[in-house]
């Protein structure tokens, strides 16, 4: 049982929890995006593809212009453009939203490698210099608090941004008029339509936003945590974010709790040199964890009532 002992030891270190928060944020951003999209009634399983696209274009832009902020903007835009395809196909053409989502993921995976070949030839993409990465920021003063200082206040800038976005998403969804309308569209689009709300505009906006958030997460992954693009580097995180969203009952803070759990699994895996278990078995951890969490949702978790159903005006 030395592996278990290793893990328990690990749980007491601040390093682990610092890594957990970062890994959680990586999942949180697409989870927030998915939540917003589904609250408006559009099923979105394309976070994986949108993240990957954001990651690639973020790296490409950063290599070209050496400016991480610009590159992040490009990444977000790239994610949003991918999302727009999904929105267009699902809302305008009323395509099956799951097929469309899967298609986006396949499209992104193929397109990114195709573009690597076209832009960089057959070599790999190249590494972004240290100075052009998204910086880690130590909050002066607060970062010296024992244990929590390291965990909470010595993080990448995107982590802070994400936490702000978390609170913002919650406020908008549940306290503002816009959020009320988004949720109305997701629960009963006919009712919203007859109340004079523009269902299509809200859905397009929500899906677009989910693309922005996933793209941001891709930038964080590629030029914040890592410094290059590797094919399929998102490794299923977009899908895990989905599970987090379901676990969180389509609420931002609920999703965050799930992301922390999954982040923990990821952080433990990253430390596999310390724990004496085959790295491959450990790699299963995030996915097994997701299954267990989903299986534990015996109390039914209900999505917005009109989630996944294309809206046809005038149909009764």
């Amino acid at each position, binding site marked *: 049982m030395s592996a278990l002992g290793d893990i328990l030891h690990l749980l007491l270190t601040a390093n682990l929890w610092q890594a957990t928060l970062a890994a959680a944020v990586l999942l949180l951003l697409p989870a927030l995006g998915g939540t917003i999209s589904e609250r408006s009634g559009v099923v979105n399983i394309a976070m994986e593809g949108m993240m990957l696209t954001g990651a690639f274009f973020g790296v490409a832009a950063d290599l070209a212009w050496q400016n991480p902020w610009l590159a992040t903007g490009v990444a977000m835009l790239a994610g949003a453009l991918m999302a727009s395809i999904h929105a267009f196909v699902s809302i305008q053409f009323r395509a099956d939203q799951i097929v469309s989502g899967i298609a986006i993921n396949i499209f992104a995976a193929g397109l990114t490698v195709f573009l690597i070949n076209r832009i960089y030839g057959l070599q790999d993409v190249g590494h972004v210099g240290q100075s052009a990465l998204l910086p880690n920021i130590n909050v002066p003063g607060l970062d010296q608090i024992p244990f929590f200082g390291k965990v909470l206040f010595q993080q990448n800038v995107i982590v802070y941004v994400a936490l702000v976005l978390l609170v913002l998403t919650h406020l908008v969804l549940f*306290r*503002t*008029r*816009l*959020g*009320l*309308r988004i*949720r*109305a569209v997701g*629960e*009963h689009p*006919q*009712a*919203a*339509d*007859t*109340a*004079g*709300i523009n269902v299509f505009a809200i859905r397009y906006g929500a899906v677009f936003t989910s693309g922005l958030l996933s793209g941001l997460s891709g930038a964080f992954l590629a030029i914040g945590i890592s410094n290059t693009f590797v094919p399929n580097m998102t490794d299923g995180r977009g899908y895990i974010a989905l599970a987090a969203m379901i676990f969180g009952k389509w609420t931002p803070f609920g999703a965050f709790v799930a992301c922390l759990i999954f982040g923990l699994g990821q952080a433990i895996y990253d430390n596999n040199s310390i724990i004496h278990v085959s790295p491959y078995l450990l790699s299963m951890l995030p996915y097994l964890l997701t299954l267990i969490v989903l299986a534990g949702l015996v109390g039914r978790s209900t999505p917005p*009532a009109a989630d996944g159903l294309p809206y046809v*005006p*005038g149909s*009764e």
Partner: protein
Amino acid sequence: MSDQGASLAVDMRGITKQFPGVRANDKVDFSVRRAEIHALVGENGAGKSTLMNILYGLVHPDSGEILIDEKTVHVAGPRDAIGLGIGMVHQHFMLIPVFSVGENIMLGREPVTGPGFYDRARARAAINELTRRYGLALDPDARMGDLPVGLQQRAEIVKVLYRGAEILILDEPTGVLTPQESKELFGVLRDLVKGGKTIIFISHKLKEVLEISDRITVMRRGKVVGHLTTRDTNEEEIATLMVGRAVLLRVDKAPAKPGEVALKVDNLTANSDQSVPALKGASFELRYGEILGIAGVEGNGQSELMEVLAGTRHATGGQVLLAGRDITTMDANTERDAGVAFIPEDRRGTGLVLGFSIAENSILGRERALTFSWRHFVLNLVAIRNWALRLVKEFDIRTPSIDVAVRNLSGGNQQKVIVAREIGSNPKVLLAAQPTRGVDIGAIEFIHRQIVRERDNGAAVLLVSAELDEVRSLSDRIAVMYEGRIVSIEPPDTPEERLGLLMTGGGVREGAA
């Protein structure tokens, strides 16, 4: 047709709307005077809902014009309609169950503070003011899904008034109300009219139309076929206009010859889909050769009763005996084998697989029967087709072939497929739940005749219907259900007022069943 004297709140002229395959509105002229209650009457598919959807901006006409208060307008969408003072209370409520009453009413016109925060306090105040002014009591913070149907409808009306509606369109408003709630609604409507509002009342319930309206417009197959003044007309005249020929409002049948007891139900209890007790101890007997009709407002346990009897719902207590055999916990398939047929009330959801052909639907529930499959596994396509062809012929189902997907049939023909399937199996017991809901009059007559024929062949028939007329004309005995129990068994010629009273919980004699 112009109206002399009174000013017109609504004047629709020459409205035409074509959908693929059907002309929903054909040069329709429809006008409503200010401060009157005007009924728009017609069968399903007559075009009344389409006409009102056009008025409300949900649908755009191909040609024609609309005048509101004698000024030509263009209604591009609900927002325009609301701006013109038109409000619509839909047949299927446009309410969000998980939102509060206040949020539902405010949707689209929410009061805000600061950078867009929803101002709950101001919403509450506005609603309280409105409900006070019109005498419609409502709690703004209650969760909409928890309210009874009558109150939900009230919220719909408040919603419409909040937006300053002067012209209210109500689409089949009494379908889900008890007779008592209907009376309350009519009182509200009369008050609104006294206050100067104009009301358009869509219905196919002729008695109510005669009670509440000032004038009536009758539509049939997309055209207007009659303008009537209410006090000068009667049910027969309206029905004839609706259908185009003299209509049999009563079913011709010979007196019943009841035999042995087929079903004995004793203190049966069951829960609804929301896990709340819905059937709270129903007891009655059903004999071969008779039709027992269950009268009651929807939601008093009739649906659950039928489903338990048919074997598609789990009973929580009590007992059901079929010719002496305990079938309380029996599942649907075994019951079918025992000769119990079930026409479910939800024909499109439960009774049929819409994407399947007529042939495939004709064996729904019997796909493992040895008549239709070898060794219960491999389907015997020839036997199935022959069976389907027979049903189509005997039950006059209008279709070009038995391979047509059932979703392409009209409502009446769809219902005929179900009726044919269930009756065609020569059942000993026939459970019919809302067998003619949403079906046109011609098919209604046919189905009624089939049900009576089964009775005359010795089957025991249990009928549940929300249409009191149907229950009264078909049944040999009437059982009234209220709050999950059978409160009384009455003879079929019992006056409607007494039935209405029983359906709402009054008038039970001491010691009655």
